[in-house]
């Protein structure tokens, strides 16, 4: 098993060299497919082997652990120099301060600090199992999609940009490797190394096009993530100074053993802070929105399977140490607030990718809130959300990317009547959207469990606030998704044209759709055989989170959502009906699209969605949201830090 894990982590890093050096488009594509295939097979194989072995938690050291330790150290320093160089080049010196601080402190401790006992550095448990499947399967599908997309991106749409596809595809593999390393690491030093790699890689991916906007946004992402890295550096230093360990699980056990001692809570607070930055919670949401300038595959990668999931992964790990204490309250409040604020903001934007970005932030907010609560039900809900969100969001991004390549716009308003022009794309989009919010799908199950757990949360203020956040947040979530859906179904205003989507893009998207449906149908199984042992691992008890009765109801609803419209469709297909034009006060110019204006000429009738700019607009809500969330974080951090000294 150790060898397999090592292979899983190292393989993508090494394979990244291939697309980087091969510049022939066809041959490179072949190697990317091959690499993605190997990553997928390797991750599934590892996961399945572990599952068949009985699913026991494995603690182990990597083979040649000493050597890897040195590599991590050298790698950290290298990343620091690299960032400092870039910061110097683009005159953003403040960033170099962040990276130097966050790298020098842990490295110094590692070199000259007290010698730590030789402990295990890696852990393989149920959470890791889920994470490697998500990264391996979703990630490599995005890799496959990227080949086709980037071809269209450079050849058809952005001829003015330098073609750096080799670099792009290589970076995707680096990302896989870093994510695999991250979810296996138990030792904070290796966790920190992989953490920094994802920060830097995402920075490079966001800045891919080298336009001014891209560079600005990429630096924004960098400084926010480095700030989080500083939090992690503090946690490591605290481990060296006070606890004589830098093992994540030791930290958690210590905090659990004496929940009232702020000294043990401090590293947890710092790690949680780092995770909040990475999962793009308010006030750090800016970087994820800025990441939209990058080509679609990188958005899909950052938003669904990797990067933001690294943040929530760490929070799920920490959750038992956060139950009903200050850190947990901070995380829950930030998460709940983000859920509501981001979903309000999503109402006011019409750029498809931006809607997706806000919805990602909002969904992550719900997950983060679940972890902050720290109960079994919420972890159950959080893990479900992670899985469903990864699949549907990756699918949605790919679909919007394909639509943009085909119709030349990603504005929701321009997608009117997509169902009748590009039914395949529209269908995928509909499934993805349905997966994000509709009743029987993932979100509902999770929301049900989360709401129940929040009511039971011990702190009165947090509990009441969280319930309100969830209730209002669900309402606003419903609003922006439904209006998008209704736009797709509306009457088409544009001419039919050729679908420019490549076969490899379709392969990836259809695979996602199948996966989503399979997940929905398989959710009772998933709950029984994966989530139960997971909560047994974390909480030591196995409780039926959702009653048997409710599982049946959900299955009924689920079947209802598919079967009822389908049966009705079949039954009404041959209904005799006289076709009429829609009512426009009798002024239609012969069809549903145009009307006779007061001058007697036909004019096009334009139908647009509500965006509520003056009520929910970015200008109005964004800054207050940042201020409120900053306030929450600062207050709780002061409480924890003050208590520790």
């Amino acid at each position, binding site marked *: 098993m150790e060898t397999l894990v090592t292979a899983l982590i190292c393989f993508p890093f090494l394979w990244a060299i291939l697309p980087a050096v091969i510049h022939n488009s066809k041959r490179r594509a072949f190697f990317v497919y091959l690499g993605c295939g190997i990553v997928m097979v390797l991750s599934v194989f590892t996961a399945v082997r572990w599952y068949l072995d009985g699913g026991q938690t494995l603690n182990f050291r990597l083979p040649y652990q000493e050597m890897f330790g040195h590599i991590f150290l050298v790698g950290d320093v290298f990343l620091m120099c690299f960032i400092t160089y870039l910061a110097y080049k683009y005159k953003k010196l403040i960033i170099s301060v962040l990276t130097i601080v966050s790298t020098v402190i842990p490295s110094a401790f590692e070199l000259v600090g007290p010698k730590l006992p030789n402990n295990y550095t890696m852990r393989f448990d149920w959470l890791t199992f889920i994470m490697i499947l998500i990264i391996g399967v979703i990630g490599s599908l995005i890799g496959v999609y990227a080949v086709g997309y980037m071809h269209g991106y450079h050849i058809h749409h952005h001829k003015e940009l330098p073609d750096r596809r080799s670099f792009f595809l290589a970076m995707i593999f680096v990302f896989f490797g870093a994510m695999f390393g991250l979810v296996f690491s138990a030792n904070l030093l290796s966790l920190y190394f992989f953490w920094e790699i994802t920060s830097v890689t995402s920075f490079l991916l966001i800045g891919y096009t080298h336009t001014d906007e891209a560079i600005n946004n990429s630096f924004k992402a960098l400084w926010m993530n480095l700030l989080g890295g500083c939090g992690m550096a503090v946690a490591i230093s605290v481990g060296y100074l006070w606890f004589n360990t830098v093992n994540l699980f030791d930290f958690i056990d210590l905090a659990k053993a004496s929940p009232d001692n702020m000294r043990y809570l401090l590293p947890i607070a710092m790690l949680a802070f780092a995770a909040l930055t990475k999962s793009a919670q308010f006030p750090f949401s800016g970087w994820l929105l800025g990441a939209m300038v990058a080509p679609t595959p990188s958005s899909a990668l950052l938003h669904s399977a990797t990067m933001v999931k690294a943040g929530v992964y760490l929070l799920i790990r920490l959750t038992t140490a956060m139950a009903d204490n200050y850190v947990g309250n901070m995380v829950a409040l930030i998460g709940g607030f983000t859920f509501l604020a981001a979903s309000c903001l999503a109402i006011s934007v019409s750029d498809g990718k931006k809607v997706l970005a806000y919805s990602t932030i909002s969904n992550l907010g719900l997950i983060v809130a679940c972890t902050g609560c720290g109960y079994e039900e919420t972890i159950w809900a959080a893990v479900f959300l992670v899985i469903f969100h990864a699949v549907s969001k990756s699918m949605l991004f790919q679909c919007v990317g394909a639509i943009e390549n085909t119709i030349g716009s990603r504005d929701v308003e321009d997608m009117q009547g997509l169902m009748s022009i590009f039914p395949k794309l529209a269908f995928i989009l509909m499934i993805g959207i349905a997966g994000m919010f509709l009743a029987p799908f993932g979100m509902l199950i999770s929301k049900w469990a989360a709401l129940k757990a929040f009511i039971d949360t011990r702190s009165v203020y947090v509990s009441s606030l969280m319930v309100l956040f969830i209730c209002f947040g669900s309402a606003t979530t419903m609003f922006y998704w439904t209006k998008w859906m209704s736009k797709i179904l509306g009457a088409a205003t544009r001419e039919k044209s050729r679908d420019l989507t490549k076969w490899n893009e379709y392969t990836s998207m259809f695979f996602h759709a199948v996966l989503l449906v399979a997940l929905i149908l398989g959710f009772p199984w998933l709950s029984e055989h994966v989530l139960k042992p997971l909560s047994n691992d974390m909480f030591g008890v196995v409780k039926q989170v959702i009653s048997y009765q409710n599982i049946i109801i959900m299955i009924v609803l689920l079947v209802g959502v598919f079967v009822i419209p389908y049966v009705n469709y079949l039954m009404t297909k041959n209904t005799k009906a006289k076709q009429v034009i829609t*009512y426009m006060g009798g002024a239609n110019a012969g069809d549903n699209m145009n009307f006779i204006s007061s001058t007697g000429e036909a004019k096009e009738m334009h139908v647009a969605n509500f965006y509520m700019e003056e009520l929910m607009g970015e200008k109005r809500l964004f800054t207050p949201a940042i201020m409120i969330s900053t306030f929450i974080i600062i207050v709780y951090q002061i409480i924890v830090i003050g208590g520790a000294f």
Partner: protein
Amino acid sequence: MSTIHKSPWLLHYDGSSCNGCDIEVLACTTPVYDVERFGVINTGNPMHADIFLITGGINSQNEAVVKQIYDQMPQPKVVIAVGTCACTGGIFKECYNIKGGADTVIPVDIYVPGCAARPESIIDGVVKGIGLFKEKAEALAASQKA
């Protein structure tokens, strides 16, 4: 037993009129005349309407509009022309832009004379229209069976 005549919904279209008849039509819905006691609802939507009530004459501007609205009403339907203008064109008949009464574009079933038509006579026309509505519904049902 058909009860279709107990639910006649009404669509009021104001053609080229002096608005006198329109006021009288609205008067029918007030407490004094209360046309709703017959189940009449003054709907604003041809798709939901059973009785098309036209006041005022037809000019070249509204000709197409009246025709379109008539087409958007589902069968069975009844058309009532209220007021002299809707019946014949009235005092505007000789104007350069006037085509004449409502029956120049669509088939009119019931004519309610008057300038302006009194609410009592409008209600009388509507009640006659309701009777006709029932007959038409039965004829339609019979033709569908056949």
